[in-house]
């Protein structure tokens, strides 16, 4: 009974992170793209796309918080669902995000010597890609 619950919660957590990642990509991707596009129709489509992405992100954020609270309330679940493989994979994902962020900083720095880049756009792009790379890598490491 307990075993099934651990595996069920582990699988749900993966799905929640997957939808959270898709939501983040849709929402923030559309948000950045809107700054680069002038066509009104495309901006309208991106707004809808962005809203759906935000809704997905927000719903799954709430589900992840709820799952986190459930795990915290039971010591056996907490031990099993935050075991050393999870911590190992989480550390690798954070490292992936860090290196992506660093490479992106170097790329933008290099680009700034040739052209003027909006500071806002650079911040948005770094936040978007930094978070996305961390999330995607965590999903990949989970499946390996």
């Amino acid at each position, binding site marked *: 009974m*307990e*075993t099934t619950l*651990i*595996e069920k919660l*582990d699988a749900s957590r993966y799905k929640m992170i997957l939808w959270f990642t898709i939501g983040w990509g849709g929402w923030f991707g559309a948000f950045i793209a809107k700054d680069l596009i002038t066509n009104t129709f495309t901006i309208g489509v991106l707004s809808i796309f962005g809203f759906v992405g935000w809704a997905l992100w927000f719903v799954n954020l709430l589900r992840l918080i709820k799952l986190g609270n459930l795990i915290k309330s039971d010591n*056996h679940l907490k*031990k*099993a*669902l935050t*075991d*050393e*493989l*999870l911590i*190992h994979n989480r550390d690798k994902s954070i490292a992936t995000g860090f290196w992506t962020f660093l490479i992106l900083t170097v790329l933008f720095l290099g680009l700034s010597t040739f052209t003027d880049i909006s500071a806002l756009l650079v911040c948005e792009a770094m936040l978007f890609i930094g978070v996305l790379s961390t999330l995607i890598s965590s999903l990949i490491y*989970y499946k*390996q």
Partner: protein
Amino acid sequence: MENQELRNQIKVQRAIKSITQEELASEIGVTRKTINTIENGKFVPSTILAIRLAHFFEIPVEELFELIDI
């Protein structure tokens, strides 16, 4: 010394005890995926987890995990 591989007897010990990866995971307090990755040599467990596994199977750690020169 440089080319060594950690091999384990978890699959054999599980067969002796007739338990699944999921049941072992529950007993040890990890997920089935963790047991699966250790068993297949994809993940090297901590000393604590290795000892917990050895205690569960009632054998010495060095019998459950063996460092092989390759």
